[in-house]
């Protein structure tokens, strides 16, 4: 037995056979085979094109249904490339002129187009060469049976192993019912990982050289809780993991019985359980666990993985699609929260000695009003299509709120002049994540419609503990009495002003904290969607009136 350790992307345990997923057989068609029957070769190509189009139609439909238009679009583009007659003419030309077989003609055509794109002086276009290759590979697959990639035998128990998977690889493999995948490369924040999570595919990534070619065909077990892969497991391991899987399945089943139930404690206190969303693909899970809404929509992802600022139209389309998908449930969009520690090149923010206390969040937005206004206009316009709210991060003074409101009002009057629809009464809220905001929360509460306590930063700033620092991160304690007292203070001030208060840090999903939050009168807990049902169960088992006095007196 071999035990490989990597990074778990989605929790879950699966058993299966390891299948290598390779792509490098493409160049084996680089040898021309003489064919005296050009017509036969051309019809072979035309039939393969039809089959490929059908495959892409299927992929487009399933991606559209599961993941939305944004992800599905890639298959639409691939279809258009297949329909392109310059491509087809090139293939037919090679078949006729060189008396070549169709596979070779597709290969050569692909190489020529790839070359054209690779030599363009635009990095983005250079990457499009891979689209051409993807399509050509698909067409060749439809003509002949390449070795390696046939994923049809015993579909139900395959686990895919490869160096790295692209998002479209994953979408396609999923439609063939793979159980899980393991890769040598990859990162937890990559598009592929985000997709794997929303598709609930157990997967372990960045295994590096531990993953060896000779494991192909072996029995493997993925343990997505421990981040481990067992290759040719011994009987004791199989027994242990079968038991673990049984327990997990039972737990899952129990939790799913809480779908559709209200978040009300035994004595009738209600709390909203909403989801944190970091990517559009998360929305599917949000709907699956029937969250009360989106309590924190991290808009940063729209700005990441690109070379330029997203336009108002691009942002508008994303916000609008989320707002309408949520069917009237609230969608709290947090404005851009980047800084020197997580930033995009095109923002051009110099390195800082102390980024946590530097140029970040609302400070950047207020300093660069153009970026800010583009985003605000997009959010406002989306507010015509659902229950959209705006949340501003990193607030530390009243003055910031006044400046934000001024800019927001400018955006509103611009939109009014342009006769564009928006919700004039859109609710605005602020993150309470600096000790300063806690201390003046009575003043701030008069200016906004809701508070959202961001515990991760609040703990870091209040306890003076840098979580990235291995020497001190053991002191990072969200349950520190200082933090609980701060949360109480914010809740009390919110209640006095009659506004909503929520918690959107990691501890919102901590079952040990639920009783405390309910006792303090927190109105909303926003967390990563998979935790919602567990917390719902906890809320429904809690009797707040019995524990409130005892908990509050201890703070």
């Amino acid at each position, binding site marked *: 037995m071999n035990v490989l350790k990597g990074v778990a992307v989605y929790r879950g345990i699966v058993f299966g056979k390891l299948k290598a997923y390779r792509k490098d057989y493409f160049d084996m068609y680089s040898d021309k085979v003489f064919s005296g029957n050009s017509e036969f070769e051309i019809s072979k190509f035309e039939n393969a094109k039809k089959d490929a189009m059908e495959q892409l139609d299927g992929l487009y439909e399933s991606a559209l249904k599961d993941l939305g238009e944004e992800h599905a*679009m890639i298959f639409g583009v691939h279809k*258009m*490339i297949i329909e392109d007659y*310059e*491509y087809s003419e090139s293939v037919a030309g090679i078949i006729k002129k060189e008396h070549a077989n169709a596979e070779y003609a597709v290969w050569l055509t692909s190489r020529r*187009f790839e070359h054209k794109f690779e030599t363009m*002086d*635009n990095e983005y276009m250079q990457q499009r060469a891979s689209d051409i290759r993807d399509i050509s590979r698909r067409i060749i697959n439809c003509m002949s049976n390449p070795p390696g990639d046939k994923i049809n035998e015993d579909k139900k128990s395959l686990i895919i192993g490869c160096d790295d998977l692209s998002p479209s690889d994953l979408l396609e493999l999923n439609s063939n019912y793979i159980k899980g995948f393991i890769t040598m490369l990859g990162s937890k924040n990559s598009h592929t990982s985000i997709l794997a999570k929303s598709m609930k595919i157990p997967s372990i990534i960045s295994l590096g050289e531990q993953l060896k070619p000779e494991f192909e065909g072996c029995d493997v077990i993925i343990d997505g809780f421990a981040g481990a892969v067992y290759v040719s497991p011994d009987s004791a391991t199989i027994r242990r993991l079968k038991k673990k899987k049984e327990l997990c399945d039972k737990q899952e089943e129990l939790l799913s019985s809480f779908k559709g139930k209200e978040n009300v404690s035994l004595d009738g206190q209600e709390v909203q359980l909403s989801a944190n969303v970091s990517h559009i693909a998360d929305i599917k899970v949000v709907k699956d666990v029937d969250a009360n809404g989106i309590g924190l929509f991290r808009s940063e992802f729209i700005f990441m993985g690109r*070379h*330029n600022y997203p336009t108002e139209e691009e942002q508008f389309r994303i916000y609008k699609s989320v707002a309408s998908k949520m069917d009237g449930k609230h969608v709290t969009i947090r404005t851009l929260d980047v800084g020197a520690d997580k930033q995009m090149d095109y923002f051009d923010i110099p390195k800082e000695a102390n980024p946590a206390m530097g140029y970040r969040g609302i400070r950047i937005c207020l300093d660069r009003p153009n970026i800010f206004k583009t985003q605000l206009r997009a959010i406002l316009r989306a507010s015509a299509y659902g229950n959209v709210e705006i949340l501003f991060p990193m607030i530390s003074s009243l003055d910031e709120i006044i400046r934000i409101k001024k800019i927001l009002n400018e955006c509103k009057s611009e939109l009014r002049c342009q006769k564009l629809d928006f919700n004039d009464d859109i609710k605005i809220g602020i993150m309470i994540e600096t000790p300063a905001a806690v201390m003046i929360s009575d003043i701030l509460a008069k200016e906004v419609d809701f508070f959202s306590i961001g515990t991760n930063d609040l703990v870091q700033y209040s306890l003076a503990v840098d979580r990235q620092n291995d020497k001190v991160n053991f002191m990072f304690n969200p349950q520190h009495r200082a933090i609980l007292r701060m949360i109480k203070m914010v809740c009390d001030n919110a209640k006095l002003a009659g506004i909503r208060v929520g918690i959107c840090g990691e501890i919102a999903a901590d079952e040990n904290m639920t009783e405390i939050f309910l006792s303090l009168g927190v109105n909303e807990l926003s967390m990563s969607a998979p935790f919602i049902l567990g917390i719902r169960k906890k809320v429904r088992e809690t009797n707040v009136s019995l524990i409130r006095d005892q908990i509050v007196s201890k703070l």
Partner: protein
Amino acid sequence: MNFKYKIKNPCGVHARPAGHLATFVKNCNKKYDECEIKIGKSISADCGCGDCKDASQILSVMSLGLKKGDEAVFYIYGPDEQAENDIKRDMCDLLSEHF
């Protein structure tokens, strides 16, 4: 009819913009009996251009390699002037959003 358009998309005319254009042109071809829309890269002040490509073909459009700041030239041949103007108007909406 012809007109010029300066590319503003920082990524240039890549797959998605080219795809949107191709879809649009294909719809025009369906709508009007005689209709041809071509795209090229501007090389002189008077709408002259090098290679002209059928704008309904995504690879052809992409392989022009139009970058931000480049000028594209569009040629619209429709059944009559009214139709050409209609096509141009709709096309400009599309261009301002994706190109």
